[in-house]
């Protein structure tokens, strides 16, 4: 009976999972916030601010999309 438990690998898995989850949800939430700011700015007639907010939102969602693609590559590997 071999009972060598790799606590290191376990802790690593847990830590990475925590950080990645919080990071993805944070970035996605920032994207939603930026999108909402754009709507407010456009409604107020300030297109300059709106464009900046839209660019920020796009960046956030693109980062999330990249994370999903990386996830897909892990599944297919």
């Amino acid at each position, binding site marked *: *009976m071999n009972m060598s438990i790799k606590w290191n690998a376990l802790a690593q898995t847990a830590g990475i*999972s925590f950080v*990645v989850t919080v990071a993805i949800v944070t970035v996605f939430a920032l994207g*939603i916030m930026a999108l909402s700011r754009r709507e407010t700015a456009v409604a107020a007639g300030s297109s300059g601010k709106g464009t900046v907010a839209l660019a920020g939102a796009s960046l956030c969602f693109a980062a999330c999309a990249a994370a999903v693609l990386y996830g897909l590559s892990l*599944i297919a590997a």
Partner: protein
Amino acid sequence: MEHISFLVAVVIITALAFDFTNGFHDTANAMATSIATGALKPKVAVAISAVLNFAGAFLSVKVATTISGGIVNEKTGLQPSIIFAALAGAILWNLVTWLRGLPSSSSHALYGGLIGATVVGVGLHGVNFGVVVSKILIPAVASPIVAGLAAWGATKLAYRITRKNSTEATNKGFRKGQIFSASLISLAHGTNDAQKTMGIITLALVSVGALPKHALPPTWVIVAAGGAIAAGTYMGGWRIIRSMGKGLTDIQAPQGFASESAAATVILTSSHMGYGLSTTQVVSGGIMGAGLGGPKAEVHWSMARRMVYTWGLTLPAAALVAGAAAFVADKGTWGVLVVGAVLVAGSAGMWVLSRRQPVTAGNVNEVTPVDVAAPVTPTPASTTVAA
């Protein structure tokens, strides 16, 4: 030879039946919170999940070369009768928990079945208990906690960042996100779980010399396994979806997205590190964490307790049933027939019992707990008492 080829046919059919129960048992994992928050309509959700489970079956055959991941000693060659008994135990436990609306791990049911059947058929030395502890038990305890913590933190941040938005805009955004996170879980599920069935069928074919040793699953096996899990997924498993989506906590779109992201991340990270953990337990842990991290900070602990008890019971219960099945099936063709008859009769009986309080796509989002002991018109007092 006659007996063996008959047995292999039985194993293939039973493996596909297990794959089917695995499908509807685990639909909730990917889709329960998306259905509960209204991100996807129930029928649309199960259709997407079914398609992705099927697609997932084609993505990889890496896991399919070993069905137990070293839990039982496969070197001596797993006897088809042991595999058959293991599957019988796993199917029956999956159906009992489905009837009660309890999400339990299909993988643990299969592992439990393999352990029980191996102990009876081969002996205690056939099971690597060290691997059982390090690859199953420890991840089973750790993974829901990790997913719960991650979902809790992510939920807190999601609410904090979007606090100046209108609730409507926030929910709309997170619902869209949920479609992606749920899809990723479905795909990962199809890849992992359909491969187990492929592995079982392939090993059974190898054992009678229909395939060379170390053969990869033939295309028809991949299609059949993917098809069975997709068909099961499309059935919905509405009883479990209700428990997970409505029974644990009142979940809103940001919480749904946080819990699904946590689950997807934990599942992918762990399988990358070689831990075979239970999607069911990870998702449930994520939902509880998201419930506690939300504005109401609540979890229905009575439901959570029932789930945790079920998780603890899954492995030993499936092992017991499979052990008994292995004992009978080992007696020859008539033994296999007896086990098969008990399996079919038991499954049919549980389906009939489920009709007493049917849960469908139409009423999946009601909050009445699922319980067979309840009368057709549920009264609050009797529905929460477990039979």
